[in-house]
C-alpha cells in the first residue's frame, strides 16, 4: 500500500491544477479585455485586474490545504504562459509572487478560516504582490499622486470584489454540486447531528 507522503496528495495536486488550468484560459482571455478596458482610461482596467488572483482564492476555498493557493496561482499563470500570454514570461513570475502573498495571508490564519473576510484579505495580499512586481517593472511611483491613488484604489477594490466576494460565491455554488465531498466527507453539522 502507499506510504503516507508528506505534503499534498496527488488527488489534491491534480484537482488544484485542473481548476487552475481552467482559470489559466480565463486569465488568457482576460488579457485582451483588460487592454480594451484600459483604452477607456482612468484606470478602469484596474477594477478587473483582480480576476488574475481568483485561482488561488478558489483553490484555497475548495481544497482547504496549505500550499494549494500558491500552487493554483503558479499553475494558472504557467497555463497562461503556455497559451502565449501577451505579457510573456512576466505572468509566471507575477503568478509566483501573487500566489506567495495570498498563501502567506491564508497561513497567517492557519488555514482554518474560509470566509469572505479571509479570502478578501488573501486577494489584498495578492494585490500587494502584484504591486511589488509593478513597482520594479513599470516605475509606477512616477505616476502623479492623484493618478496613483486612483490606480491603487481601483486595483484593491477590484481584487476584493472578484477574488474575494465572487470566489466565495463560486465556491458555495460548487459545494452545492457535491464535488467537495471527497475532501470533506462529513461536515461539522453532521457530527452535531449525531450529538443531538
Amino acid at each position, binding site marked *: 500500500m502507499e506510504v503516507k507522503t508528506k505534503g499534498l496528495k496527488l*488527488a489534491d495536486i491534480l484537482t488544484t491544477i485542473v481548476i487552475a*488550468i*481552467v482559470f489559466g484560459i480565463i486569465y488568457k482571455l482576460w488579457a485582451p479585455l483588460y487592454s480594451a478596458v484600459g483604452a477607456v482610461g482612468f484606470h478602469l482596467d484596474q477594477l478587473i485586474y483582480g480576476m488574475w488572483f481568483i485561482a488561488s482564492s478558489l483553490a484555497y476555498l475548495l481544497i482547504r490545504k496549505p500550499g494549494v493557493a500558491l*500552487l493554483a496561482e503558479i499553475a494558472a499563470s504557467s497555463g497562461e*504562459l503556455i497559451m*502565449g500570454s501577451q505579457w510573456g*514570461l512576466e505572468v509566471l513570475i507575477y503568478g509566483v509572487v501573487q500566489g506567495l502573498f495570498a498563501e502567506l495571508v491564508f497561513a497567517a490564519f492557519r488555514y482554518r478560516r474560509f470566509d469572505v473576510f479571509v479570502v478578501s484579505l488573501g486577494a489584498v495580499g495578492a494585490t500587494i504582490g502584484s504591486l511589488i512586481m509593478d513597482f520594479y517593472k*513599470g516605475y509606477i511611483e512616477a505616476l502623479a499622486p492623484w493618478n496613483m491613488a486612483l490606480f491603487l484604489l481601483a486595483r484593491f477594490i477590484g481584487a476584493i470584489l472578484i477574488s474575494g466576494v465572487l470566489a466565495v460565491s463560486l465556491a458555495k455554488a460548487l459545494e452545492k454540486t457535491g*464535488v467537495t465531498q471527497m475532501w470533506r466527507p462529513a461536515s461539522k453539522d453532521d457530527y452535531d447531528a449525531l450529538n443531538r
Partner: protein
Amino acid sequence: MNWDIQRRETWLYEANPSLKLIVLVMLFFAVLFIHNPNVLINVSLALFVLFCFGTGYPANVLFWLFLPFFLVFVSTASSMMMFGEGTTTWFRWGLIHVTAESFWRGVHIGFRALALGLLGLIFSLTTRPVPLFYSLMQQLRLKPKYAYSFLAAVRLLPIMLEEFQAIRYALTVRGVPNKGVLSKMKRYAIPLLSQSIRRAQRIAVAMEAKQFSGSGRRTFYYEIGFGKYDIWLVALFAALMFAAYYVGVHYPYISISDVR
C-alpha cells in the same frame, strides 16, 4: 503549445527546456534592471529578430501573435507618457500632462513590456509541454506528482472545450436568456468546474493506483539531457545581451542614459 499550424522546428526547439527556462528567467530579471533606454531598445530589437527568424512560424502567424504585444507596448507607453510626472512640460491639456521625463520613461517601459513579452513568447513558441515537464523532473528535480498532474491537466483541456460547447448548445436549445454577465458566468463556470473536479478526482485515483504519486526513484520514458544546442543557446543570449549593451552605450539613439 501545439496549435495546428505549419511550422519549421528550429534548433531552439532542441535546446534543453529547463535550461531555456532558466536562461530566459535570468534575462527577464536582467531586463528589469536596464535603465538605459538605448540598451533596452537594442535588446527589444534583437529579441524581435529572434522571434521573427528563430521560432520557425510563418509570417502571417507571427503577425497575429505579435499584435497583442504591440497593443501592450502602446498602452503601457502612452499611459506613462500622458499622466506621468516631470518638470520639462511639452504639452498640457486638462489632466493630460506630457513632459520630457514622462515621455522617455513611457518609451522605456513600453520597450520593457515588449522585451519581456517577447521573451515569454519565444519560450512558449519553441517549447513543447511534454519535454518541458520531463526535463523539469529530470534536471530541476520537480516532484513527479506535480509534473504528471500538470501533464494530465493539459490533456483535459480539449475535453473541457468540448464541454463548453455542449453547455452552450444546451443553453441555446432550452432557450435560456443570454443576459446578465454574472449569471451567465455562473451558468458556464459551475458545470465546467464541477465536471473537471470530478474528472480530476477519478484520474487521481487511477494515477495513485499506478504509483504516479510515489516518491521513490523512477525511470522516464523520455530521457532529456544536454547537447550542442544548449551551448548555442547560452552563447546566443550572452552575445545578444553584450552586443545590445555595447551598441547602446557607445552608439546611443537618444542622449538619455538613465530614465529614473
